[in-house]
Protein backbone atom coordinates (compact mmCIF):
# COMPACT_ATOMS: atom_id res chain seq x y z
CA UNK A 1 0.00 0.00 0.00
CA UNK A 2 1.28 3.47 -0.77
CA UNK A 3 1.95 5.81 2.08
CA UNK A 4 -0.64 8.54 2.19
CA UNK A 5 -2.33 10.82 4.65
CA UNK A 6 -6.00 10.97 4.10
CA UNK A 7 -7.02 11.79 7.63
CA UNK A 8 -6.65 15.54 8.17
CA UNK A 9 -8.88 17.35 5.70
CA UNK A 10 -6.87 19.33 3.22
CA UNK A 11 -3.74 17.81 4.73
CA UNK A 12 -1.94 18.03 1.39
CA UNK A 13 -1.78 21.80 1.51
CA UNK A 14 -0.86 22.02 5.22
CA UNK A 15 2.63 21.90 6.63
CA UNK A 16 3.17 18.74 8.68
CA UNK A 17 3.87 19.37 12.38
CA UNK A 18 6.25 16.47 12.47
CA UNK A 19 8.17 15.19 9.52
CA UNK A 20 10.21 11.99 9.34
CA UNK A 21 12.31 11.91 6.19
CA UNK A 22 13.94 8.70 4.98
CA UNK A 23 14.95 7.75 8.52
CA UNK A 24 16.90 4.65 9.50
CA UNK A 25 18.28 3.85 12.90
CA UNK A 26 21.07 1.39 13.55
CA UNK A 27 21.82 0.60 17.20
CA UNK A 28 25.49 0.44 18.30
CA UNK A 29 25.26 -3.38 18.25
CA UNK A 30 24.60 -3.22 14.50
CA UNK A 31 20.88 -4.01 14.63
CA UNK A 32 18.82 -1.90 12.25
CA UNK A 33 15.65 -1.14 14.20
CA UNK A 34 13.93 1.20 11.74
CA UNK A 35 14.61 1.40 8.06
CA UNK A 36 13.74 4.00 5.41
CA UNK A 37 10.78 5.55 7.20
CA UNK A 38 8.92 8.48 5.68
CA UNK A 39 6.13 9.91 7.74
CA UNK A 40 4.38 13.26 8.03
CA UNK A 41 2.11 13.94 10.98
CA UNK A 42 -0.30 16.88 10.89
CA UNK A 43 -2.11 19.05 13.43
CA UNK A 44 -5.14 17.37 14.92
CA UNK A 45 -4.18 13.83 13.97
CA UNK A 46 -4.49 10.70 16.09
CA UNK A 47 -2.00 8.18 14.75
CA UNK A 48 -1.83 4.56 15.86
CA UNK A 49 1.35 2.54 15.34
CA UNK A 50 0.80 -1.20 15.17
CA UNK A 51 3.16 -4.13 14.79
CA UNK A 52 4.81 -7.01 16.60
CA UNK A 53 7.26 -6.55 19.43
CA UNK A 54 10.61 -5.80 17.87
CA UNK A 55 9.11 -4.33 14.70
CA UNK A 56 10.57 -0.90 15.45
CA UNK A 57 7.57 0.99 16.90
CA UNK A 58 9.25 2.19 20.08
CA UNK A 59 12.53 2.99 18.33
CA UNK A 60 10.62 5.12 15.86
CA UNK A 61 8.72 7.18 18.45
CA UNK A 62 11.87 7.67 20.54
CA UNK A 63 13.08 9.80 17.64
CA UNK A 64 10.20 12.22 18.07
CA UNK A 65 11.72 13.99 21.09
CA UNK A 66 15.35 13.37 20.32
CA UNK A 67 15.85 10.47 22.75
CA UNK A 68 17.30 8.84 19.65
CA UNK A 69 18.61 10.61 16.59
CA UNK A 70 18.48 9.04 13.14
CA UNK A 71 21.53 7.24 11.76
CA UNK A 72 20.26 8.26 8.34
CA UNK A 73 17.68 10.85 7.30
CA UNK A 74 16.20 13.58 9.46
CA UNK A 75 13.26 14.51 11.61
CA UNK A 76 11.69 17.89 12.22
CA UNK A 77 9.25 18.55 15.03
CA UNK A 78 7.48 21.91 15.14
CA UNK A 79 10.05 23.17 12.63
CA UNK A 80 13.02 22.05 14.75
CA UNK A 81 15.56 19.52 13.53
CA UNK A 82 15.88 16.88 16.27
CA UNK A 83 19.59 16.44 15.58
CA UNK A 84 20.26 20.09 16.41
CA UNK A 85 17.98 20.69 19.39
CA UNK A 86 18.35 19.76 23.03
CA UNK A 87 16.10 17.00 24.41
CA UNK A 88 14.85 19.45 27.04
CA UNK A 89 13.55 21.75 24.29
CA UNK A 90 12.03 18.89 22.29
CA UNK A 91 10.41 17.29 25.32
CA UNK A 92 8.32 20.41 25.82
CA UNK A 93 6.87 19.63 22.37
CA UNK A 94 6.61 15.84 22.63
CA UNK A 95 5.55 14.08 25.84
CA UNK A 96 5.52 10.38 26.59
CA UNK A 97 3.35 8.18 28.76
CA UNK A 98 5.22 4.92 29.14
CA UNK A 99 3.65 1.48 29.20
CA UNK A 100 4.60 0.98 32.81
CA UNK A 101 3.56 4.04 34.86
CA UNK A 102 6.07 3.05 37.55
CA UNK A 103 8.86 4.10 35.22
CA UNK A 104 7.79 7.71 35.41
CA UNK A 105 6.20 8.04 38.83
CA UNK A 106 8.57 8.75 41.68
CA UNK A 107 7.36 11.59 43.87
CA UNK A 108 5.56 11.14 47.20
CA UNK A 109 2.24 12.77 46.27
CA UNK A 110 0.02 13.04 43.24
CA UNK A 111 0.20 16.85 43.38
CA UNK A 112 4.03 16.85 43.39
CA UNK A 113 3.97 14.39 40.51
CA UNK A 114 1.72 16.72 38.50
CA UNK A 115 3.92 19.74 39.24
CA UNK A 116 7.20 18.03 38.41
CA UNK A 117 7.08 18.29 34.62
CA UNK A 118 6.19 21.97 34.81
CA UNK A 119 9.05 22.82 37.20
CA UNK A 120 11.42 21.48 34.56
CA UNK A 121 10.01 23.91 32.04
CA UNK A 122 10.94 26.94 34.19
CA UNK A 123 7.53 28.58 34.02
CA UNK A 124 6.10 31.07 36.50
CA UNK A 125 4.52 29.80 39.71
CA UNK A 126 1.09 31.07 38.65
CA UNK A 127 1.22 29.48 35.22
CA UNK A 128 2.22 26.16 36.74
CA UNK A 129 -0.65 26.35 39.19
CA UNK A 130 -3.09 27.09 36.42
CA UNK A 131 -1.88 24.17 34.30
CA UNK A 132 -1.81 21.71 37.20
CA UNK A 133 -5.30 22.72 38.28
CA UNK A 134 -6.61 22.22 34.78
CA UNK A 135 -5.16 18.70 34.70
CA UNK A 136 -6.60 17.95 38.16
CA UNK A 137 -10.02 19.02 36.98
CA UNK A 138 -9.94 17.08 33.72
CA UNK A 139 -8.77 13.86 35.35
CA UNK A 140 -10.97 14.31 38.43
CA UNK A 141 -8.02 13.89 40.78
CA UNK A 142 -9.25 16.33 43.45
CA UNK A 143 -9.56 13.63 46.14
CA UNK A 144 -6.25 11.99 45.39
CA UNK A 145 -3.83 14.92 45.46
CA UNK A 146 -2.16 14.03 48.74
CA UNK A 147 -2.08 10.27 48.04
CA UNK A 148 1.19 8.56 47.28
CA UNK A 149 0.98 7.46 43.62
CA UNK A 150 2.21 4.01 44.65
CA UNK A 151 -0.88 3.54 46.81
CA UNK A 152 -3.05 3.86 43.70
CA UNK A 153 -3.89 0.93 41.46
CA UNK A 154 -2.14 0.59 38.11
CA UNK A 155 -4.86 2.25 36.02
CA UNK A 156 -5.06 5.20 38.41
CA UNK A 157 -1.26 5.51 38.30
CA UNK A 158 -1.45 5.57 34.54
CA UNK A 159 -3.99 8.37 34.76
CA UNK A 160 -1.68 10.35 37.01
CA UNK A 161 1.07 9.90 34.41
CA UNK A 162 -1.31 11.13 31.70
CA UNK A 163 -2.42 14.07 33.85
CA UNK A 164 1.24 15.06 34.39
CA UNK A 165 1.74 15.12 30.64
CA UNK A 166 -1.45 17.15 30.27
CA UNK A 167 -0.05 19.74 32.69
CA UNK A 168 3.14 20.07 30.65
CA UNK A 169 0.85 20.24 27.62
CA UNK A 170 3.25 19.22 24.87
CA UNK A 171 1.84 19.49 21.36
CA UNK A 172 2.42 15.79 20.73
CA UNK A 173 1.43 13.13 23.27
CA UNK A 174 2.84 9.65 22.77
CA UNK A 175 0.98 6.89 24.61
CA UNK A 176 2.83 3.56 24.72
CA UNK A 177 0.45 0.61 25.20
CA UNK A 178 -2.10 2.64 27.20
CA UNK A 179 -4.63 -0.21 27.54
CA UNK A 180 -2.34 -3.15 28.37
CA UNK A 181 -3.58 -4.94 31.47
CA UNK A 182 -6.52 -2.54 31.84
CA UNK A 183 -10.03 -3.80 32.47
CA UNK A 184 -12.97 -2.81 30.28
CA UNK A 185 -13.60 0.37 32.23
CA UNK A 186 -9.92 1.33 32.03
CA UNK A 187 -9.91 0.77 28.27
CA UNK A 188 -13.01 2.93 27.87
CA UNK A 189 -11.32 5.67 29.90
CA UNK A 190 -8.25 5.57 27.64
CA UNK A 191 -10.51 5.93 24.61
CA UNK A 192 -12.16 9.00 26.18
CA UNK A 193 -8.75 10.46 27.05
CA UNK A 194 -7.43 10.11 23.51
CA UNK A 195 -10.52 11.93 22.25
CA UNK A 196 -10.08 14.58 24.94
CA UNK A 197 -6.41 15.15 24.05
CA UNK A 198 -7.46 15.56 20.43
CA UNK A 199 -10.19 18.05 21.35
CA UNK A 200 -7.63 20.06 23.29
CA UNK A 201 -5.57 20.40 20.13
CA UNK A 202 -2.93 17.75 20.76
CA UNK A 203 -1.54 15.33 18.26
CA UNK A 204 -1.81 11.84 19.76
CA UNK A 205 0.52 9.00 18.79
CA UNK A 206 -0.56 5.61 20.12
CA UNK A 207 1.64 2.55 20.21
CA UNK A 208 -0.77 -0.29 20.77
CA UNK A 209 -1.80 -3.89 20.15
CA UNK A 210 -5.39 -3.08 21.09
CA UNK A 211 -7.49 -3.55 17.99
CA UNK A 212 -10.71 -2.62 19.78
CA UNK A 213 -9.23 0.76 20.66
CA UNK A 214 -8.14 1.43 17.07
CA UNK A 215 -11.50 0.16 15.83
CA UNK A 216 -13.36 2.68 17.98
CA UNK A 217 -11.07 5.54 16.93
CA UNK A 218 -10.84 4.50 13.27
CA UNK A 219 -7.77 6.73 13.18
CA UNK A 220 -4.80 6.88 10.87
CA UNK A 221 -2.95 3.60 11.38
CA UNK A 222 0.65 2.79 10.63
CA UNK A 223 1.77 -0.82 10.55
CA UNK A 224 5.42 -1.63 11.22
CA UNK A 225 6.96 -4.96 10.32
CA UNK A 226 10.63 -5.92 10.49
CA UNK A 227 11.77 -2.29 10.90
CA UNK A 228 9.78 -0.99 7.94
CA UNK A 229 6.50 0.82 7.53
CA UNK A 230 4.24 -1.52 5.57
CA UNK A 231 0.96 0.37 5.79
CA UNK A 232 -0.21 3.92 6.48
CA UNK A 233 -3.90 4.62 6.07
CA UNK A 234 -7.17 4.94 7.94
CA UNK A 235 -7.80 1.90 10.19
CA UNK A 236 -10.75 0.53 8.21
CA UNK A 237 -8.69 0.53 5.03
CA UNK A 238 -5.65 -1.05 6.72
CA UNK A 239 -7.84 -3.70 8.37
CA UNK A 240 -9.36 -4.63 5.03
CA UNK A 241 -5.93 -5.51 3.57
CA UNK A 242 -5.70 -9.20 4.40
CA UNK A 243 -2.11 -9.48 3.15
CA UNK A 244 -0.80 -6.71 5.40
CA UNK A 245 -2.73 -7.99 8.41
CA UNK A 246 -1.30 -11.45 7.91
CA UNK A 247 2.24 -10.23 7.34
CA UNK A 248 2.16 -8.26 10.60
CA UNK A 249 0.34 -11.04 12.50
CA UNK A 250 -2.65 -8.79 13.23
CA UNK A 251 -6.26 -9.77 13.75
CA UNK A 252 -9.02 -7.18 13.39
CA UNK A 253 -11.57 -6.77 16.21
CA UNK A 254 -14.02 -9.68 16.49
CA UNK A 255 -16.86 -7.57 15.13
CA UNK A 256 -14.88 -6.98 11.91
CA UNK A 257 -14.44 -10.72 11.34
CA UNK A 258 -18.17 -11.15 11.99
CA UNK A 259 -19.09 -8.43 9.48
CA UNK A 260 -16.75 -9.91 6.88
CA UNK A 261 -18.60 -13.24 7.15
CA UNK A 262 -22.08 -11.76 6.71
CA UNK A 263 -23.49 -12.01 3.22
CA UNK A 264 -25.89 -9.06 3.14
CA UNK A 265 -23.69 -6.20 4.37
CA UNK A 266 -22.11 -3.67 2.04
CA UNK A 267 -19.01 -5.66 1.20
CA UNK A 268 -17.11 -2.60 -0.02
CA UNK A 269 -16.91 -1.33 3.56
CA UNK A 270 -14.95 -2.59 6.57
CA UNK A 271 -16.89 -2.41 9.82
CA UNK A 272 -14.81 -1.75 12.93
CA UNK A 273 -17.47 -1.30 15.61
CA UNK A 274 -20.81 -2.76 16.70
CA UNK A 275 -22.41 0.65 16.12
CA UNK A 276 -21.17 0.93 12.55
CA UNK A 277 -22.95 -2.31 11.58
CA UNK A 278 -26.13 -1.30 13.39
CA UNK A 279 -26.24 2.05 11.60
CA UNK A 280 -25.75 0.37 8.25
CA UNK A 281 -28.64 -2.00 8.97
CA UNK A 282 -30.80 0.92 10.05
CA UNK A 283 -30.08 2.93 6.91
CA UNK A 284 -30.64 -0.07 4.75
CA UNK A 285 -34.00 -0.84 6.37
CA UNK A 286 -35.11 2.75 5.92
CA UNK A 287 -34.14 2.67 2.26
CA UNK A 288 -36.10 -0.54 1.77
CA UNK A 289 -39.14 0.94 3.49
CA UNK A 290 -38.93 4.05 1.30
CA UNK A 291 -38.69 1.86 -1.75
CA UNK A 292 -41.76 -0.08 -0.63
CA UNK A 293 -43.70 3.17 -0.06
CA UNK A 294 -42.73 4.55 -3.45
CA UNK A 295 -43.60 1.21 -4.98
CA UNK A 296 -47.06 1.06 -3.37
CA UNK A 297 -47.76 4.77 -4.11
CA UNK A 298 -47.32 4.46 -7.85
Amino acid at each position, binding site marked *: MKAQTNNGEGAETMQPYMSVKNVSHVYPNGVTAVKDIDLDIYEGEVVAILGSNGSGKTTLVKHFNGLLTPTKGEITVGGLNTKKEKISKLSSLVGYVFQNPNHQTFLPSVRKELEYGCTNLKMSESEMEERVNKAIELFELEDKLEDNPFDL*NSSQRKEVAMASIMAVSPKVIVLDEPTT*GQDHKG*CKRVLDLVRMFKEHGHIVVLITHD*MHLIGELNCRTIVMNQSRKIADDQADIVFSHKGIMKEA*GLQPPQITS*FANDLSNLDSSKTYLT*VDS*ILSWIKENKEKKEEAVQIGSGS
Partner: protein
Amino acid sequence: MAEQAIEVTNLTFEYPDTEEPVLKDISFSIDYGEILGIIGPTGAGKSTLAMCVNGLVPQVINGEMEGDIKVKGMNVHESNVAAMSEHVGFVFQEPENQLSQMTIEEEIAFGMGNLGVPREEMLGRIKDALSQVSLEGFEERSPLALSGGQQQRLAIAAVLAMRPTIMIMDEPTSMLDPKGKNEVYDVLKNLKAYGMTGIIIDHEVERIAAYCDKVLVLDGGEVQMFGTTEEVFTKIDRLHELTLHAPQVTEFLSQYNQQFDGKLDLATTVKKAVEVYESANK
Protein backbone atom coordinates in the same frame (compact mmCIF):
# COMPACT_ATOMS: atom_id res chain seq x y z
CA MET B 1 -21.79 -35.04 43.33
CA ALA B 2 -18.84 -37.02 42.02
CA GLU B 3 -15.35 -35.76 42.84
CA GLN B 4 -14.60 -32.54 40.97
CA ALA B 5 -11.21 -31.36 39.71
CA ILE B 6 -11.51 -28.19 41.77
CA GLU B 7 -14.02 -27.59 44.51
CA VAL B 8 -14.05 -24.31 46.41
CA THR B 9 -16.45 -23.96 49.33
CA ASN B 10 -17.15 -20.78 51.32
CA LEU B 11 -13.68 -19.38 50.73
CA THR B 12 -12.91 -16.10 52.48
CA PHE B 13 -9.44 -14.56 52.48
CA GLU B 14 -8.02 -11.41 53.98
CA TYR B 15 -4.53 -9.97 53.49
CA PRO B 16 -2.76 -8.73 56.65
CA ASP B 17 -3.37 -5.08 57.60
CA THR B 18 -6.42 -4.67 55.38
CA GLU B 19 -9.89 -3.71 56.48
CA GLU B 20 -11.86 -6.02 54.27
CA PRO B 21 -11.44 -9.53 52.92
CA VAL B 22 -10.27 -9.64 49.29
CA LEU B 23 -12.33 -12.81 48.73
CA LYS B 24 -15.74 -13.23 50.32
CA ASP B 25 -17.54 -16.52 50.69
CA ILE B 26 -16.58 -17.95 47.32
CA SER B 27 -18.00 -21.28 46.19
CA PHE B 28 -17.70 -22.96 42.79
CA SER B 29 -16.50 -26.18 41.27
CA ILE B 30 -15.11 -27.35 37.93
CA ASP B 31 -15.09 -30.84 36.56
CA TYR B 32 -12.18 -32.71 34.99
CA GLY B 33 -11.53 -31.52 31.44
CA GLU B 34 -13.29 -28.19 31.87
CA ILE B 35 -11.67 -24.82 31.27
CA LEU B 36 -12.85 -21.99 33.51
CA GLY B 37 -12.42 -18.33 32.59
CA ILE B 38 -12.28 -15.80 35.42
CA ILE B 39 -13.14 -12.22 34.50
CA GLY B 40 -13.72 -9.11 36.54
CA PRO B 41 -12.54 -5.52 36.98
CA THR B 42 -9.03 -4.70 38.20
CA GLY B 43 -8.77 -5.33 41.94
CA ALA B 44 -11.65 -7.82 42.01
CA GLY B 45 -9.49 -10.55 43.58
CA LYS B 46 -8.96 -12.73 40.49
CA SER B 47 -5.24 -13.41 40.99
CA THR B 48 -5.67 -14.02 44.72
CA LEU B 49 -8.38 -16.58 43.98
CA ALA B 50 -6.18 -18.35 41.43
CA MET B 51 -3.29 -18.49 43.90
CA CYS B 52 -5.57 -20.03 46.54
CA VAL B 53 -6.13 -23.02 44.29
CA ASN B 54 -2.48 -24.11 44.37
CA GLY B 55 -1.91 -23.01 47.95
CA LEU B 56 0.45 -20.09 47.17
CA VAL B 57 -2.14 -18.13 49.12
CA PRO B 58 -1.95 -18.39 52.14
CA GLN B 59 1.16 -20.61 52.41
CA VAL B 60 3.60 -18.24 50.70
CA ILE B 61 1.53 -15.08 50.51
CA ASN B 62 0.17 -14.73 54.01
CA GLY B 63 -3.24 -13.84 55.28
CA GLU B 64 -6.26 -15.24 57.01
CA MET B 65 -8.24 -17.90 55.21
CA GLU B 66 -11.53 -19.60 55.92
CA GLY B 67 -13.36 -22.23 53.92
CA ASP B 68 -12.28 -25.24 51.91
CA ILE B 69 -10.43 -25.84 48.68
CA LYS B 70 -10.21 -29.33 47.27
CA VAL B 71 -8.12 -30.22 44.26
CA LYS B 72 -8.67 -33.74 42.92
CA GLY B 73 -10.36 -34.49 46.23
CA MET B 74 -7.30 -33.41 48.25
CA ASN B 75 -7.50 -30.58 50.72
CA VAL B 76 -5.08 -27.86 49.60
CA HIS B 77 -4.58 -26.61 53.21
CA GLU B 78 -3.33 -29.98 54.30
CA SER B 79 -0.81 -30.14 51.50
CA ASN B 80 2.01 -27.74 50.66
CA VAL B 81 2.80 -25.74 47.53
CA ALA B 82 5.63 -28.05 46.51
CA ALA B 83 3.44 -31.13 46.72
CA MET B 84 0.58 -29.35 44.95
CA SER B 85 2.86 -28.40 42.05
CA GLU B 86 2.61 -31.99 40.88
CA HIS B 87 -1.13 -31.48 40.42
CA VAL B 88 -1.55 -27.80 39.69
CA GLY B 89 0.68 -25.86 37.27
CA PHE B 90 0.78 -22.06 37.34
CA VAL B 91 1.70 -19.69 34.50
CA PHE B 92 2.07 -16.02 35.36
CA GLN B 93 1.58 -12.81 33.39
CA GLU B 94 5.21 -11.98 32.69
CA PRO B 95 7.08 -14.86 31.10
CA GLU B 96 10.53 -13.49 31.97
CA ASN B 97 9.82 -13.61 35.69
CA GLN B 98 9.33 -17.36 35.67
CA LEU B 99 12.36 -18.40 33.64
CA SER B 100 15.69 -18.99 35.39
CA GLN B 101 17.88 -21.45 33.51
CA MET B 102 20.59 -21.18 30.86
CA THR B 103 19.00 -23.40 28.23
CA ILE B 104 15.47 -24.35 27.31
CA GLU B 105 16.15 -27.99 28.10
CA GLU B 106 17.36 -27.09 31.61
CA GLU B 107 14.42 -24.77 32.05
CA ILE B 108 11.99 -27.60 31.46
CA ALA B 109 14.03 -30.07 33.53
CA PHE B 110 14.09 -27.68 36.50
CA GLY B 111 10.53 -28.26 37.72
CA MET B 112 10.75 -31.99 37.09
CA GLY B 113 14.01 -32.17 39.05
CA ASN B 114 12.21 -30.67 42.01
CA LEU B 115 9.56 -33.38 41.73
CA GLY B 116 12.25 -36.08 41.64
CA VAL B 117 11.48 -37.27 38.11
CA PRO B 118 14.21 -39.78 37.08
CA ARG B 119 16.72 -38.50 34.53
CA GLU B 120 15.89 -41.03 31.83
CA GLU B 121 12.23 -40.11 31.98
CA MET B 122 13.00 -36.39 31.78
CA LEU B 123 14.27 -36.50 28.20
CA GLY B 124 11.03 -38.00 26.93
CA ARG B 125 8.95 -35.52 28.86
CA ILE B 126 11.02 -32.57 27.59
CA LYS B 127 10.45 -33.74 24.05
CA ASP B 128 6.69 -34.12 24.61
CA ALA B 129 6.36 -30.75 26.32
CA LEU B 130 8.29 -28.93 23.58
CA SER B 131 6.16 -30.53 20.90
CA GLN B 132 2.95 -29.54 22.73
CA VAL B 133 3.99 -25.88 22.54
CA SER B 134 5.68 -26.20 19.10
CA LEU B 135 9.21 -25.43 20.29
CA GLU B 136 10.87 -28.60 19.05
CA GLY B 137 14.55 -28.18 18.25
CA PHE B 138 14.97 -25.26 20.67
CA GLU B 139 16.51 -27.42 23.45
CA GLU B 140 19.94 -25.79 23.49
CA ARG B 141 18.86 -22.15 23.13
CA SER B 142 18.75 -19.59 25.90
CA PRO B 143 15.26 -18.76 27.21
CA LEU B 144 16.21 -15.09 27.09
CA ALA B 145 16.78 -15.25 23.33
CA LEU B 146 13.13 -16.11 22.71
CA SER B 147 10.33 -13.72 21.78
CA GLY B 148 7.67 -12.96 24.42
CA GLY B 149 5.23 -15.44 22.92
CA GLN B 150 7.91 -18.15 22.76
CA GLN B 151 8.95 -17.44 26.36
CA GLN B 152 5.39 -17.82 27.54
CA ARG B 153 5.06 -21.07 25.58
CA LEU B 154 8.27 -22.25 27.24
CA ALA B 155 6.86 -21.39 30.67
CA ILE B 156 3.81 -23.48 29.75
CA ALA B 157 6.04 -26.35 28.53
CA ALA B 158 7.97 -26.31 31.82
CA VAL B 159 4.67 -26.67 33.66
CA LEU B 160 3.37 -29.36 31.27
CA ALA B 161 6.48 -31.49 31.79
CA MET B 162 5.48 -31.80 35.43
CA ARG B 163 2.29 -33.44 34.12
CA PRO B 164 -0.17 -31.55 36.28
CA THR B 165 -3.88 -32.34 35.99
CA ILE B 166 -4.76 -28.68 36.31
CA MET B 167 -3.24 -25.62 34.68
CA ILE B 168 -3.81 -22.09 35.97
CA MET B 169 -2.91 -19.12 33.80
CA ASP B 170 -3.07 -15.57 35.15
CA GLU B 171 -3.37 -13.15 32.21
CA PRO B 172 -0.89 -15.24 30.21
CA THR B 173 -1.11 -13.07 27.11
CA SER B 174 -1.52 -9.52 28.37
CA MET B 175 2.17 -8.65 27.89
CA LEU B 176 2.36 -10.24 24.45
CA ASP B 177 1.94 -8.83 20.95
CA PRO B 178 -0.82 -10.19 18.68
CA LYS B 179 1.42 -12.94 17.28
CA GLY B 180 2.43 -14.02 20.78
CA LYS B 181 -1.19 -14.00 21.96
CA ASN B 182 -2.23 -16.25 19.09
CA GLU B 183 0.66 -18.62 19.79
CA VAL B 184 -0.33 -19.01 23.44
CA TYR B 185 -4.03 -19.45 22.69
CA ASP B 186 -3.20 -22.07 20.08
CA VAL B 187 -1.37 -23.99 22.78
CA LEU B 188 -4.42 -23.67 25.03
CA LYS B 189 -6.62 -25.10 22.33
CA ASN B 190 -4.28 -28.11 22.19
CA LEU B 191 -4.40 -28.58 25.94
CA LYS B 192 -8.15 -28.65 25.83
CA ALA B 193 -7.96 -31.35 23.19
CA TYR B 194 -5.74 -33.35 25.56
CA GLY B 195 -8.43 -33.11 28.25
CA MET B 196 -6.53 -30.73 30.53
CA THR B 197 -8.46 -28.93 33.27
CA GLY B 198 -7.69 -25.25 33.42
CA ILE B 199 -8.33 -21.81 34.82
CA ILE B 200 -7.59 -18.71 32.73
CA ILE B 201 -7.76 -15.11 33.87
CA ASP B 202 -8.04 -12.68 30.96
CA HIS B 203 -9.70 -9.37 30.11
CA GLU B 204 -10.32 -10.38 26.50
CA VAL B 205 -13.83 -11.75 26.66
CA GLU B 206 -13.82 -12.77 23.00
CA ARG B 207 -10.97 -15.17 23.78
CA ILE B 208 -12.64 -16.44 26.95
CA ALA B 209 -15.84 -17.11 25.01
CA ALA B 210 -13.96 -19.04 22.36
CA TYR B 211 -11.87 -21.22 24.70
CA CYS B 212 -13.69 -21.68 28.01
CA ASP B 213 -16.52 -23.97 29.08
CA LYS B 214 -17.46 -21.96 32.12
CA VAL B 215 -17.04 -18.40 33.28
CA LEU B 216 -16.82 -16.96 36.77
CA VAL B 217 -17.32 -13.22 37.22
CA LEU B 218 -15.63 -11.77 40.26
CA ASP B 219 -16.20 -8.26 41.58
CA GLY B 220 -15.46 -6.81 45.00
CA GLY B 221 -14.19 -10.23 46.09
CA GLU B 222 -17.56 -11.90 45.48
CA VAL B 223 -18.79 -14.30 42.84
CA GLN B 224 -21.24 -12.18 40.85
CA MET B 225 -21.94 -14.71 38.12
CA PHE B 226 -20.97 -18.31 37.49
CA GLY B 227 -22.16 -20.62 34.75
CA THR B 228 -21.49 -21.88 31.27
CA THR B 229 -19.93 -19.42 28.86
CA GLU B 230 -23.31 -18.98 27.14
CA GLU B 231 -25.17 -18.43 30.41
CA VAL B 232 -22.80 -15.73 31.59
CA PHE B 233 -22.16 -13.85 28.35
CA THR B 234 -25.82 -13.66 27.36
CA LYS B 235 -26.74 -11.79 30.57
CA ILE B 236 -25.55 -8.56 29.06
CA ASP B 237 -27.34 -6.12 31.36
CA ARG B 238 -25.79 -7.74 34.40
CA LEU B 239 -22.31 -7.62 32.81
CA HIS B 240 -22.75 -3.93 32.05
CA GLU B 241 -23.78 -3.26 35.64
CA LEU B 242 -20.44 -4.78 36.64
CA THR B 243 -18.62 -2.48 34.14
CA LEU B 244 -17.85 -5.53 32.01
CA HIS B 245 -18.98 -6.43 28.53
CA ALA B 246 -19.83 -9.47 26.47
CA PRO B 247 -17.97 -10.49 23.29
CA GLN B 248 -18.58 -7.96 20.51
CA VAL B 249 -20.80 -10.33 18.51
CA THR B 250 -23.02 -10.91 21.55
CA GLU B 251 -23.22 -7.17 22.17
CA PHE B 252 -24.19 -6.73 18.52
CA LEU B 253 -26.97 -9.36 18.58
CA SER B 254 -28.36 -7.91 21.80
CA GLN B 255 -28.45 -4.38 20.41
CA TYR B 256 -29.89 -5.63 17.15
CA ASN B 257 -32.75 -7.23 19.09
CA GLN B 258 -33.38 -3.99 20.97
CA GLN B 259 -33.23 -1.63 17.99
CA PHE B 260 -35.04 -3.76 15.44
CA ASP B 261 -37.37 -5.70 17.71
CA GLY B 262 -35.55 -8.92 16.83
CA LYS B 263 -35.59 -12.24 18.60
CA LEU B 264 -32.12 -13.50 17.74
CA ASP B 265 -30.42 -15.96 20.08
CA LEU B 266 -27.40 -14.37 21.72
CA ALA B 267 -24.45 -16.33 20.35
CA THR B 268 -20.97 -15.77 21.81
CA THR B 269 -18.67 -16.77 18.94
CA VAL B 270 -18.29 -15.40 15.41
CA LYS B 271 -19.34 -18.65 13.75
CA LYS B 272 -22.55 -19.06 15.72
CA ALA B 273 -23.40 -15.37 15.54
CA VAL B 274 -23.12 -15.45 11.74
CA GLU B 275 -25.44 -18.51 11.62
CA VAL B 276 -27.99 -16.85 13.91
CA TYR B 277 -27.99 -13.58 12.01
CA GLU B 278 -28.02 -15.10 8.53
CA SER B 279 -30.87 -17.50 9.24
CA ALA B 280 -33.03 -14.60 10.50
CA ASN B 281 -32.13 -12.30 7.58
CA LYS B 282 -32.38 -14.49 4.52
